[in-house]
């Protein structure tokens, strides 16, 4: 390897019992690059995202960050490496407020562990207004269980955008968003790219992917079948690969 990529997957396989979800998957993400991770239902995209997030451990193969071989044993490890994830099934707790969800597991506290509630609330308010414009949320004290599907997704996005450091993984982030919110999110991805934050965008919408991605990785049955720069491909070619492989 001449130059170390920010994130690399080396021959990763992942089995759930008898089912092999990923087999010999390798691809990389460069610094400041937006990679579109595409593929049919069940291709293994979410499994890949969970694996990079440290929720699943590979059965074989390994990850490397900045060229150094790494094993994530839990989510905190990947967070430490600068990876932030928006999960397909928004990882929020319905019985807690928006503020508490945003800071879940990363609470701002004094040195005795007591919550700095006012500060967190102010940040939450700001994050909700800036990161993605979220319609109809008037207070960060609202319980997440009282939000609509799109609003929940927006909270999960706001959380990831606030804590992002180096890589943002987005697993079908737009599935419940309105047109306007989707545009805002895609712009956010481009803005982060300007700040040298990489993204991996999982989506079934090739137009959205084509709008923001620099490169496309297409998966089928748990492995990579196509890896192409945006300049070298078209939407119709991508469609063909997604549908026909």
């Amino acid at each position, binding site marked *: 390897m001449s130059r170390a990529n920010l994130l690399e997957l080396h021959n990763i396989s992942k089995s759930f019992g008898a089912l092999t979800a990923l087999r010999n998957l390798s691809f990389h993400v460069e610094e400041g690059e937006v990679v579109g991770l595409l593929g049919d239902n069940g291709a293994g995209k979410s499994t890949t995202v969970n694996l990079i997030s440290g929720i699943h451990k590979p059965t074989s193969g390994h990850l490397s960050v900045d060229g150094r071989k790494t094993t994530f044993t839990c989510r905190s490890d990947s*967070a430490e490496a600068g990876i932030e994830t928006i999960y397909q099934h928004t990882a929020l707790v319905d019985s807690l407020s928006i503020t*508490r969800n945003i800071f879940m597991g990363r609470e701002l506290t004094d040195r005795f562990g007591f919550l700095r509630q006012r500060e967190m609330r102010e940040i939450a308010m700001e994050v909700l207004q800036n990161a993605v414009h979220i319609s109809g949320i008037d207070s960060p004290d609202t319980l997440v*269980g009282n939000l609509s599907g799109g609003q929940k997704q927006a909270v999960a996005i706001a959380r990831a955008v606030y804590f992002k450091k180096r890589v943002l993984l987005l697993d079908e982030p737009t599935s419940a968003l309105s047109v306007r919110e989707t545009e805002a999110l895609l712009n956010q991805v481009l803005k982060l790219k300007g700040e040298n934050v990489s993204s991996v965008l999982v989506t079934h919408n090739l137009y959205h992917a084509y709008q923001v991605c620099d490169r496309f990785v297409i998966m089928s049955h748990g492995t990579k079948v196509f890896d192409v720069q945006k300049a070298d491909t078209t939407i119709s070619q991508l469609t063909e690969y997604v549908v026909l492989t």
Partner: protein
Amino acid sequence: MTPILAESAAPRSRTRRQSFLGQIVAMPAGAIFLVFASLQIVCIVGALLYPDEFRYLSPQNLTILMKAIPVLGCLALGAGVLMIAGEFDLSIGSVYTFTAILMASLVEAGLSAFIAAPLGILAGLMIGMLNGQITLRFGLPSFIVTLGGLLFWRGAVLLYNGAVQVRFDPEPAFSSLFAGSLFGINAAFIWIILFVVGFHFLLHRHRFGNHVFATGGNRAAAEAIGINTGRVKLVAFAIAGGMAAMAGILATARVGSVQPGQGAGLELQAIAACVIGGLSLRGGRGSIIGIFLGVLLIHTITDVLLLLRAPGFYLDMFIATLIVLAAIFNHLIERRGLA
């Protein structure tokens, strides 16, 4: 009366214009507070109107109440924190007896109560951790594991001690610390107030509490965001066991002896207090104030029925009705939260 309040509050909240009552009901533990306050008003008015027949406000009665509340209070606080974390502990009644007997017999053997009592609490913490380890290691329902614990520790009491009562004769300083009084207020009652305040800050103002709610509310989400949910649950199990031992200390210091059968059924009363106080059986919801109000409500009703000389089975029927009404009410609130 609580379900009616819920129905009338639901449509109003949608238009964001809630009545004063609706706002109170929407607060955590708001509904239980209303029920409790109404009951208090009725009792106080009744006591003022008929001071001779209904001696609710007599100093003796208030003292009895203050002495009774702390034991169930400690058990319910521990059980409640664990319930919010999404697990149950049915063994706390047996653990309460076991640790009390352990402490009393150590004192009888000549150990200072100031050493025996912490040892009792340590035993409670360890038993709680053991429940947690078995539950988490093998992925079992804690309901089953701690049902085993209930029988096991009940048997252990008889094995260790036999079916005889143990006298508890601590040094006077120990007695006054846990069973004396300060400014006319019972020491055990002061302890439970301290615990309520401490647990309130731990659960609602501290990082640990946030993790407890997250773990019980949505374990996968908490895990995905980097919370070590296994450790959170383990600590919650330990708290339940430790508070059971604390209840044992308060009860033993008050009575001066331990009966081998005294804890039976207390675990269910503690869970009842939690449910009445607004905790969800699925975890992730509830408040410390709610738990304490649940305890107060159970004891107030017990007391009122005793003062009215009602036969004991009325008490069970009353509490039973209250639990079911509270569960229905909580369910309505949860559904509204998820709508």
